[in-house]
């Protein structure tokens, strides 16, 4: 097969996949539950977050009664946390369905009544083209969806970025990105920031090649390369951070105006600057980290091999006693410490941080620098 024919086939294959994106089952409503929209903050999460039971439904918590109500139940699994649109009208999550050995993943987008359900970008779990990353963006009812290889790659698969309107199904392709890897929405300047892979020619070379960061200004549709080194901007846009998970302290904080690395000014030990950092919504530039206990010193002489043991399968994976620390990115000072699990999966549209405590989930307002 000649190169032209092969290219043509790949192109047709891509279009076929894109054609799956607007698949819609608008009348599907597993529970036909209706959530009244009012001024109360929306609070949703995937159950069973504690992993004691199956993880296959999304619940909404009634702020008045504290009771949970199912708004979506899957025939398969919902392995990751739900994401909520900024206005709280829509939610999205990855769903995995099908028998073992032939499982498929797809992105489910639904309103909070569970009535308007869309299923986007279905793919296999291994080595196929599918959804790699997504984020709410561009107002309230749009998603930026990054596609590429899912799971281990055995051949190069092109990556693409689309902006999809979840109400109309219309999609807009963002062209000109070299190997996009991650995408984040920056509301302060109505832009998507996209981190791309280092250039292929850096392979095998010493040093740490830079990952180019692009800005896609949604209102104008203009794509431009930036000098930034990360994509996770503070709500006020003055700072951003970059994370490298495979380092013990793989967190870097930068000032947006001049891209200077200001990580050393943070009044935390490098070990505390874990890659699980997040900006606090509702505060200009407040970071929150989960506190970590110091690593135990390495035993000097080991006579017996160490061992891992199976965890208690009935022990819930929620940590209400864990401590967290809030830091002002501008001064580097610690603003506050508070207890509770900030990764328990709760999502809200209120400018607060949902924290699971022994007394239940609470919406914590961020401290002020």
């Amino acid at each position, binding site marked *: 097969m000649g190169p032209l024919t092969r290219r043509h086939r790949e192109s047709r294959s891509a279009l076929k996949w894109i054609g799956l994106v607007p698949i819609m089952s608008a009348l599907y409503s597993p529970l036909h539950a209706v959530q009244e929209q009012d001024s109360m903050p929306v609070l949703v999460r995937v159950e069973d977050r504690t992993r004691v039971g199956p993880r296959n439904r999304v619940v909404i918590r009634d702020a008045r009664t504290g009771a949970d109500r199912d708004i979506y139940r899957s025939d398969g699994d919902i392995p990751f946390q739900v994401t909520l649109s900024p206005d709280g009208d829509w939610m999205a999550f990855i769903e*995995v369905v099908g028998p073992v050995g032939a499982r498929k993943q797809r992105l489910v987008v639904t309103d909070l009544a569970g009535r308007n359900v869309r299923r986007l970008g279905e793919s296999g779990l291994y080595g196929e083209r599918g959804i790699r990353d997504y984020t709410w963006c561009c107002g309230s009812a749009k998603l930026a969806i990054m596609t590429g290889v899912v799971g281990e790659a055995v051949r*190069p698969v092109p990556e693409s970025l689309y902006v999809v309107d979840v109400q109309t199904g219309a999609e807009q392709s963002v062209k000109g990105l070299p190997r996009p890897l991650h995408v984040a929405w920056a509301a302060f300047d109505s832009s998507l920031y996209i981190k791309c892979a280092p250039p292929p020619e850096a392979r095998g070379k010493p040093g740490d090649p830079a990952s180019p960061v692009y800005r896609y200004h949604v209102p104008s549709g203009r794509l431009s390369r930036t000098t930034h080194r990360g994509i996770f901007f503070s709500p006020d846009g003055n700072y951003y951070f970059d994370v490298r998970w*495979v380092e013990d302290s793989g967190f870097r904080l930068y000032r947006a105006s001049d891209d200077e690395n200001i990580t050393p000014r943070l009044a935390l030990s490098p070990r505390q600057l874990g890659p699980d950092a997040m900006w606090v919504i509702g505060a200009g530039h407040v970071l929150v980290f989960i506190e970590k206990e110091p690593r135990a010193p390495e035993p000097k002489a080991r006579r017996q091999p*160490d061992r891992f043991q199976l965890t208690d399968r009935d022990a819930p994976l929620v940590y209400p006693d864990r401590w967290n620390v809030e830091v002002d990115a501008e001064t580097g000072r610690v603003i506050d410490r508070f207890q509770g699990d900030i990764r328990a999966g709760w999502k809200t549209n209120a400018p607060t941080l949902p924290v699971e405590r022994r007394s239940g989930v609470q919406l914590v307002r961020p401290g002020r620098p």
Partner: protein
Amino acid sequence: MGTRRASLARVHLAGALLLLGIVTQGGCDGFLGINWGGGPGDPQKPGNDCLPVGPALCGPIWDTDGDTISTNSELNTTNNTAYGGFYTFDITKWDINSSQARGVPANGTLYNGINLTDQGTGYLHHTGCDFVDEDDWGTGHLVRLIEGAGRWWLQFREHATAMQVGDLSLKSGGFFGGRCPPDHDSHRNGVDADIRYLRKDHLEGPLNICTDAANYDTVATIQLLNSFLDAEMPTDANAHIDLIFVDMDCVGIPAKTVTGRTLLVHDPNHQDHFHVRIQDPDGPFN
């Protein structure tokens, strides 16, 4: 993906020889049953080097000359200078392991790395997007940790799947990416190795423990992790595990070992393999 029965038969045969080796500890009086290191900072030869040139076995069955560089590695032509490698090993003599991890895992290079044999006792190497012998170079300590873990895995595993080893480092280290995404943020100086989780269906092949949790064999994966802890011992690979990256939300294994070492570290990018990192065997200052 497949069961690869023929290869498993070979693996079983190798296991039988391994047990024989453990019992006999080779045939040489000079073998002390300990590992003398082999990094530039460690002594390369024991004082009572018993081995003249000749057929005598001085080490265990997997390391006949007892120099801590396995016989498999020494016979692996990819390591030979004639084939572009860095060594001219002799399985009847002590050889010097001159590999060095330079820099740090996220910004470093590998000097005189050793190529992991593509198939050894209890393990198989899969290349993914890379070419054969392109993605499986490491320091001597890392290579023998993997080989040691493979031997222990073969002894104690409950099902017949070989340990599946993915990416180590490129031949001279440096940035490991540019072909198939995602690129590696580390794997640049020969101290990192990716290993697949174990599947309940006993097949070789990828497994995402978050999206394909029903097929995730937690018990077997713990056994595999414990094989690495066994191989860590001074009497085996004598390599010190620094961290093991896993997705803690899905792995179902506590971060701490029974002795209180926090070895498992959360990383959401490690849903389809765990990532073993050893401490820099030649120290952090080169």
